[in-house]
């Protein structure tokens, strides 16, 4: 199933990025796309078109900090969480879990009434 372009992904991108950064402390853009690809065994592929706007938005909101370093003749921009970012990562993860539970109860077929 191709998940890359779906609506689910758009709503959860921030949650994904924040929680990856919470695990790995400091990452650059390409590294994030590779981490997502590896963790999901290729089910989820982030395109640069989806990733960088979210990263910059998180920066604008003060949830991540950036540092640029020169690597092999080009600039690499590393992202890491701010204290608010760490809190938001936990909060978004909890919200997402709650959402999954709610969706499951909503979409599950109702139990057959048993005659007894």
């Amino acid at each position, binding site marked *: 199933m191709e998940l890359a372009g779906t609506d689910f992904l758009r709503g959860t991108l921030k949650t994904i990025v924040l929680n990856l950064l919470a695990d790995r402390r400091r990452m650059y853009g390409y590294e994030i*796309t590779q981490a997502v690809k590896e963790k999901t065994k290729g089910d989820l592929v982030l395109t640069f078109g989806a990733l960088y706007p979210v990263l910059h938005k998180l920066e604008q909101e003060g949830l991540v900090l950036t540092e640029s370093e020169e690597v092999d003749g080009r600039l690499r921009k590393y992202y890491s969480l701010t204290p608010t970012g760490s809190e938001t990562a936990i909060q978004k993860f909890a919200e997402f879990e709650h959402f999954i539970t709610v969706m499951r109860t909503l979409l599950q077929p109702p139990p057959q009434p048993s005659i007894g």
Partner: protein
Amino acid sequence: MEKLTPRQITSLHDHLLRLGLAPALVDELLDHLACELEQRLQEGLSPETALNQTLSEADGGAVRHLQETYRRELTLSDAELEQASLDDIVFQFRNKAYGAYDLRRSYPQALRESILLGVSLFVSFLFLIQTPGPATRLTLLSLLIWTVFTQTHLGRSSVRALRNAWPLP
């Protein structure tokens, strides 16, 4: 891992500039494409094929999609615009961490403090040369010191630094 040659990096860079990518994204996308190119070279593709594949993936359509998403995501919403200062709007798509944003934001305060300080220095100076007697001069001087250390940011922060460095019981 094999490093990219400056020429390969330049051709990626030129490609992005040709597509009209926003300056805020160029460096980052250059690194992204360079990583992809390195990955392809590592997989054993010839330099030419690898470069062509990387460039065709980042074609006009993909870059346009990126720019559109970027605009949509980073534009301030109506609610945010109501609250935003002129600086927020000016710096909407610019690097705030660089320093200019903070400087502009603290400018009104800096201006207020420097006027206050300038006027009080000037007035004190006038009084000092006009009034005889050490008692008046001492009063004026202490008034001036009080103004500096309690009314200006510079003064307050130095008091705080002093307190931290030399804790009083």
